[in-house]
């Protein structure tokens, strides 16, 4: 009797909870729909009142403005869609350059902070504490208006060699490697060489796992890696030439020209993010317990091998996930380029195109969508990496 009444009470309570949770959720959905409908009505009215077109047809219209740095064909007659493409490409260019620089610098500083050398660890700590606590935008402006503007005019450029490295207030000039006909053969040979070397290595590792003896493959690996491209080079008669920058009137011409906007942005992003990466690396290295290194030493591993085989693989598990989010930060922070006029996505598309067309809703939705897609891609890659790297046998 008592039992049945308790059961009935519990059932009534859970029924009440069920209805209450349903009510809450319905209320949220209804509120969201109402707000959206209200905003949509307002938007239709505003667009009519201000005579702003809607829809994505503007992507086919002529842009009519020039862009500083274009890696695909672009003229002033090109469409807004083309501008979008160039913006995305330029975002990726500056992001990749900054990511490479920031990773190298960040690992050096992170390892330096744990150095036994007092001066090295203090200098690295001071670097991190200084760079992290100053706004990135200020650092970008400092590099662009403060440092690069103070560089000499083209006539008095800082030069290394005749045209190996030329630095002036118009940017950085480097010799450019140009492929001629037949170059694809060399690139193909290089690709095959790398693939073969990787296959050889994995075969050696499997052999070592099975028999305990690692076959000597070093000679063969180098033979394939260098030999194949060398053969291809010889067969095609070196199908490359260097395009040297040269002074033409008041400016340099030819070669690889890195614009000051790109240089300032990449340097600022890399040095700023390196401070965060250094902290990540330090935390990762510190997360590996002392016993691991001692155990490696007890097994007779040399310190260099202990670092490579014991310390780094375990530290990387801790380092990689935050590292990926730092890379994502670099990509998002590259949008600060708008302050110095480097033509990436936000600067040319959400800036210039929005001003010209006035189609704020479409332009900003597309811009945000591109960044969201990049974020999503990164987290997918990270999930894949994590599942591949997760501790086995646990």
């Amino acid at each position, binding site marked *: 009797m008592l039992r049945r009444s308790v059961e009935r009470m519990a059932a009534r309570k859970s029924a009440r909870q069920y209805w209450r*949770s349903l009510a*809450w*959720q319905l209320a*949220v*959905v209804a509120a*969201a729909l109402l707000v959206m409908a209200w*905003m949509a009505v*307002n*938007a239709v*009215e*505003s*667009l009519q*009142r*201000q005579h*702003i077109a809607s829809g994505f047809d503007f992507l086919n219209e002529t842009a009519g403005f020039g862009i500083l740095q274009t890696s695909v064909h672009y003229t002033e007659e090109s469409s807004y869609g083309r501008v979008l493409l160039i913006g995305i490409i330029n975002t990726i260019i500056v992001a990749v350059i900054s990511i490479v620089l920031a990773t190298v610098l960040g690992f050096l500083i992170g390892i330096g902070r744990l*150095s*036994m*050398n*007092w*001066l*090295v660890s203090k*200098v690295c700590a001071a670097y991190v*504490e*200084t760079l*992290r*606590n*100053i*706004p*990135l*935008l*200020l650092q970008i*402006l*400092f590099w662009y*208006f*403060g440092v690069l*503007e*103070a560089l000499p005019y083209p006539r008095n450029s800082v030069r290394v060699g005749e045209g190996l490295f030329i630095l002036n207030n118009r940017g950085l000039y480097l010799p450019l490697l140009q492929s001629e006909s037949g170059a694809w053969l060399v690139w193909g040979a290089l690709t095959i060489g790398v693939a073969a070397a990787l296959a050889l290595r994995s075969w050696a590792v499997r052999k070592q796992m099975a028999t305990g003896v690692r076959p000597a493959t070093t000679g063969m690996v180098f033979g394939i890696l260098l030999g194949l491209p060398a053969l291809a080079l010889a067969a095609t008669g070196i199908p490359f030439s260097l395009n040297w920058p040269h002074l033409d009137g008041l400016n340099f011409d030819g070669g690889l020209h890195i614009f000051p906007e790109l240089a300032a942005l990449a340097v600022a992003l890399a040095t700023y993010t390196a401070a965060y990466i250094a902290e990540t690396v330090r935390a990762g290295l510190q997360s590996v317990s002392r016993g691991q290194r001692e155990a490696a030493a007890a097994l007779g591993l040399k310190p260099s091998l202990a670092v490579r085989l014991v310390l780094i693989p375990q530290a990387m598990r801790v380092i990689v996930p935050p590292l990926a989010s730092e890379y994502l930060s670099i990509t*998002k*922070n590259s*949008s*600060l380029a*708008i*302050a110095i006029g480097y033509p990436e996505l*936000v600067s040319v598309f*959400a800036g210039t195109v*929005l001003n010209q067309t006035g189609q*704020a*809703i479409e332009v*900003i939705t597309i*811009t*945000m969508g591109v*960044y*969201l897609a*990049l*974020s*999503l891609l990164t987290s997918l890659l990270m999930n894949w990496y994590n599942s591949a790297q997760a501790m086995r046998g646990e």
Partner: protein
Amino acid sequence: MTTALRWTRANLFSTPGNAVLTSSIVLLFVWAVPPVIDWAFLRAVWTGTSRDACVGADVGACWPYIWARAGQIIYGFYPDGERWRVDIVYALGIAGTLWLTLPNIPRKWLGAALMIFAFPVAAYVLLLGGVFGLEAVPTLHWGGLLLTLVVAVVGIAASLPLGILLALGRRSELPVIRWFSVTFIEVWRGVPMITVLFMAANMLPLFLPESLDTDKLFRALVAIAIFNAAYMAEVVRGGLQAIPRGQEEAAKALGLGYWRRMTFVVLPQALKISIPGLVNNMVSMLKDTSLISVIGFLDLLGVIQAGNTDPEWASPNTALTGYLFLAIIYWAACFSLSRYSARLERNLNVGARP
């Protein structure tokens, strides 16, 4: 003497590699530091009334530029006669902050209540005016340090409660609310802050009726609060996940409803663990206030950036001096905030885990 020598040997010259590293760093310092000090202080100009004082081959930093701009840097374009109102707000803010942070001032609860409820009202009335016979000062005239602090403080104060709600929503058992929170958080975390500010400046007005003519600063503040709430939510979620399930189950067994369980049992513990992360977020927010200069506000960075191109002062040294000055200010504020967070972390014993 010998101990110093021994220390040097052990810490700086223990191996040949270390000796090389130490010497090259010392050489780098000898090469780089004197010119910077020379430029910033020894060759610097300290007095003057225009750029004429700061041009020349042999001249360093242009400090009179900062003195001449001091009014704009501190008050923005607030009318001269009304600046006392800003001074009062600054003084109240400093007094309240000291009350809350210095350990030996009693009655923290009263200070907290005043800072949370009375200070915002007082600051709003004093700064905006238009009531009690105070002349109205539209936000258009705000700038410099005043604008930077308003954006930072309002942003932090608004994003924290919103972030807590989102974090609770993300862990809710109700699927609609959970998915709403997840989407909201991930969308804002996935886009750069600049695009959010652009949205507030260009896109939001289209979605509001013509009659609702919102202030541009107000729209930017809403955007900043929403954007940062997503980041706050993730920190709070980390704190929530660290609280053992038993805590909530025990509160449930005592018959407490959802909101009581959260306010009296779960959140007090979770927020305590989250403090270092929350302060880190606040440092980021303080740095990110500089982004509003991109959409045309003249905050601390905007005032200097505008001043650098003013023909009355423009010179290569002027710009660098402005940036150096700003760097020192931002650095001092952010560094002391993060030190304070480290101290809190120690005091709350968060670092010590069994």
